């Protein structure tokens, strides 16, 4: 991102948060719009269930709304948000351990007929000329998603934050409230668990 754009975005977010802290509902709506897909994606990838993801997202933004007055600007807002999401996901896991619905992968295999529930849209696959190749990719992604859901929650969250949000170890440590060494350990274990569960895909 260009320097000017970065500054503009940061200043703009600072103003937005300031307005939210004054209780401005419109400003909060804007903040919600800016981050809702990020929160939803983490929640959905972690829980694997739209209902649970909906609960997590609502709780995150509700907590954000009620606590934003206490947000200190010397903190990074996104890190604060990631921490809220991670905590809420873990709470959701504790509340409801049955998180993998049978139709979780349905949208991924939908070929466009059901756009409204396409939360698991596949990047550009409709442009791939080779149908066989596309189906093979879908099969692998389906298997990886299923393996991800079987990881222990802390390992799963580490994988989700690393691979869907591309966070550094330092950012992850802040978001998860642990050391960078713990982050490294969780990723190590997560990688190994995925590799072992999907060893049959290794060619």
């Amino acid at each position, binding site marked *: 991102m260009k320097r000017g754009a970065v500054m503009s975005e940061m200043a703009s977010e600072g103003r937005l948060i*300031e307005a939210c*802290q004054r*209780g401005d509902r419109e400003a909060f709506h804007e903040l919600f719009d800016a981050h809702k897909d990020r929160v*939803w994606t983490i929640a*959905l990838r972690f829980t694997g269930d739209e209902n649970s993801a909906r609960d997590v997202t609502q709780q995150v933004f509700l907590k954000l709304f009620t606590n934003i007055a206490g947000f200190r600007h010397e903190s990074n807002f996104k890190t604060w948000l990631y921490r809220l999401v991670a905590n809420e996901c873990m709470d959701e896991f504790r509340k409801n351990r049955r998180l993998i619905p049978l139709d979780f992968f349905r949208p991924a295999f939908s070929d466009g007929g059901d756009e409204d529930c396409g*939360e698991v849209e596949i990047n550009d696959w409709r442009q791939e000329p080779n149908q066989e190749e596309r189906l093979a990719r879908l099969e692998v992604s389906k298997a990886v998603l299923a393996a991800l859901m079987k990881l222990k929650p802390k390992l799963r969250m580490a994988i989700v934050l690393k691979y869907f949000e591309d966070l550094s170890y330092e950012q992850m440590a802040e978001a998860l409230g642990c050391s960078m060494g713990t982050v490294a350990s969780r990723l*190590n274990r997560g990688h190994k668990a995925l590799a072992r569960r999907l060893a049959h895909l290794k060619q």
Partner: protein
Amino acid sequence: MNAPQARQSTAHRSTTMFWTHVNKRLSSYLHGELRPEESRRVAEHLMICRRCRDEYEEIKFGARLAARLSDDLARAQAPAALWSELEKMIDGAEAAPKRPLAARRPLKIALAGAAALALALVVFWFYPRSPRPAWDVTRIEGAPKIGSKTVGEAGKLRVGDWLVTDDSSRAEIRVGEIGQVQVDPGSRVRLVESKADEHRLALARGKMQAFIWAPPRQFYVDTPSAVAVDLGCAYTLEVGDDGQGLLSVVAGWVAFEWQGRESFVPAMAMCVTRPRFGPGTPYFSDASEDFQNALAIFDVAEKGSDARSNALQTTLAKSRKRDALTLWHLLARTDGDDRLRVYNRLAELIPPPPQVTPEAVMRGDHAALDMWWEKLELGSAEWWRIWKGPVPSQTK
């Protein structure tokens, strides 16, 4: 502690780290989260420790699967109805008794807002930007140039820029966070690519010495007739005005590749690359002069010619046990009777394992070639296969 004791202590620490297993740091290594010196230690340890290499392979595979998800799945779109549902919850929460809102503290908010803006500016100016847009260049001697500008004590080499040293200039390039390259006098080097997983220079002419501590296959050097692919090592690369190149490996391994033709070059070995022919057959630098000369002829002579056949005969006749590296590569560069001659000589020097039959070798069976490679005691075939894939395979 006196100086000799300090040196001993440092050496002991270094040796200890060399032999200490690195399994807990493998994901950090893979993600580039280690400091350069730690990363180098992990790379060195992986070269000598099969257990950690196996674990690294497993972690890499797991990481590749995880990365697949983010590659294949678009960011999910939150349902449109979420805001209206949230608003109701907020209304409910506001109706409940609560602490006074921050809106009642306008002065404090104004100050906080100003602080936020100031912080944003500070963070903006000091936040380290990644990936780095340019590599640091330090003048060692003379007056090296980047483009038309002379480098003072230091400069920046951006993608597309040429670094040129005249006969009395020398410079050092810092390769991102993964290593360093010394550019010797009379050289022309261009920065081709600078990405997290691909650091690429082009050496059009001259000589450079590279020391890389990143995981294998992150640093490449294009020459007019081959690409040098770093597999965790230190090496020297020279390119003459005629485009011919010479690779000399000091530590670790380097792969030399060109249009499907490959040579794998270990420490203390060398490999010539020539325009139109690509990488030649690697050889140890202490091989006899006759052996080296004959090999040079073999590499360029026309297939089926007497010159090639005679050169092969001399190469085989002058080969020592240590030259098994060369002979093993020659198996993939010959066929028919010539391959059988190579097989027989290599079998004299290093008898193949019982499972490696002449028939398997004659048909170029990769598993058989791998098994034989293991007996050469140059390092496991697996470790470079891990980073590259198939055995060197081509025929001219």
